[in-house]
């Protein structure tokens, strides 16, 4: 069975946040909810400083702490490894948010779906997309499961202008993702949390 994942090449990432916007546009997330984002940090001391960028998203862990913490079974794992939330079962206890080391769970507060990014109320697009959310429940990145199921790639992957994101199946040992991980010594975020993420980073 496939195990879907992603490799992010930090040598290519320029911190443009196109992925952040593409994700927001594709999923129609409410204000303040960003499934994909880029963490920026300035390193060094003047005059030798630079900005570094770390694109983050749900890691769709192989051992997801959010699923273990969920008391209602709303968080579940697909056969292909994607971690999903069933909004019909979610009770909004936010245990998953506390359990996720990567801060990639988002709570839809009451009133959040009543206004969009414009002061003039919801745009037609927001009106359609916000219907996919429920107040008082959790939401998260699905690696664009609705696109993946049609054989397409996630929005953040196809939008990236530098091809820093590579999406695919992590299972085949000789597959393109595993080759990249082995050749360039790919690593995952917070390995000490033992979550077995499906998102790998390359910086060599």
């Amino acid at each position, binding site marked *: 069975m496939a195990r879907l994942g992603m490799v992010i090449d930090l040598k290519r990432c320029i911190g443009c946040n196109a992925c952040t916007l593409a994700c927001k546009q594709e999923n129609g997330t409410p204000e303040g909810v960003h499934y994909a984002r880029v963490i920026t940090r300035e*390193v060094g001391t003047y005059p*030798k400083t630079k900005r570094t960028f770390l694109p983050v998203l749900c890691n769709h862990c192989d051992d997801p702490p959010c699923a*273990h913490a969920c*008391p209602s079974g709303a968080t579940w794992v697909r056969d292909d490894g994607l971690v999903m939330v069933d909004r019909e079962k979610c*009770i*909004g206890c936010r245990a998953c948010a*506390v359990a996720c080391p*990567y*801060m990639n769970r988002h709570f839809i507060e009451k009133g959040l779906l009543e206004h969009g990014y414009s002061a003039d109320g919801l745009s037609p697009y927001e009106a359609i997309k916000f219907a996919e959310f429920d107040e008082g429940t959790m939401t998260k990145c699905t690696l664009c499961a609705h696109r993946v199921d049609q054989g397409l790639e996630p929005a953040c992957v196809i939008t990236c202008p530098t091809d820093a994101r590579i999406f695919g199946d992590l299972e085949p040992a000789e597959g393109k993702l595993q080759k990249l991980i082995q050749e360039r010594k790919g690593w995952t*975020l917070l390995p000490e949390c033992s979550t077995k993420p499906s998102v790998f980073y390359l910086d060599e």
Partner: protein
Amino acid sequence: MTTQPISIAQHRFGFGYYRQVWWNWLIGTAFFCGGIGASLFILSLLTRYRFGMLLGYLIVVVGKNSAHLMYLGRPERFWRAAMRPDRSWIARGIWATGLFAISGFVLLLLEFVNPQALPDGMNLAARAVAIMSGLFIMFYDGFVMNHSTAIPFWNTKLLPLLILMYATLGGTTLSLTLRMLQSYATPEVKWMEQAEPYLLLANFALLAIYLLRMSRWSPAARETARMWLKGSYARIFFGLIVAVGLLATLALSLVQQQAQGRGLALIIAGCELTGDFSLLMLMLKSGLFAPQTAPAFGR
């Protein structure tokens, strides 16, 4: 290349420690009510103190559950929280609270209506279920918090023990205070008075060990410990939790052994419960997630 020390990120696009912002004062209140209510009920059950049983029961069943329901995003679906006791400590807590509510209700009926209504075997079974479920309620919050590795300051086996000890102390203090207010002079009052200082000292020692351990744990845990001891939370920690909750309570408890008084009992309870509640609230508020780092970030 040198880097700046890691601080708390102001937003999710920034680098640094992220604050735990989901579990707030309602969850703290639920944990608090569960701990002291269950502790008060168990102590009162074992010492045949009916009023304590009733109050402890109400604190858990009404206080704890109300706080939880008010917090849930979808409270009408609360029953779903019991679905996964195989892997979720919250689900296990729901089951324990349910068993406590049923067995406690039966025991209260027996106490207030007809103590001989049930055969001895069933009476004993109800007491066993109430005590075991009550004990579970006293400490399971610690496992809810420490289960995940996401917040290093919580991810220690010491946390359930700390929560259990504070619940025991809170229930004992409350039980003692209620009996003194009602001039309920029984032998239990004497041993509770004598036990109180030892419980306070034990909690003080455990808290010190907890912070000492966290001061040598991972960076996020060390940062939280620093905030408690020297940073933005030092006033709350040393003021409310240590000075009021432990030291003042200890001093007044020793005075009470010599010169008993209802007013003094109330002050002792106020001090101890303030410290107890403050500890839970500070524990929730100060939880930090480790920063998501990369080699280029100076990891």
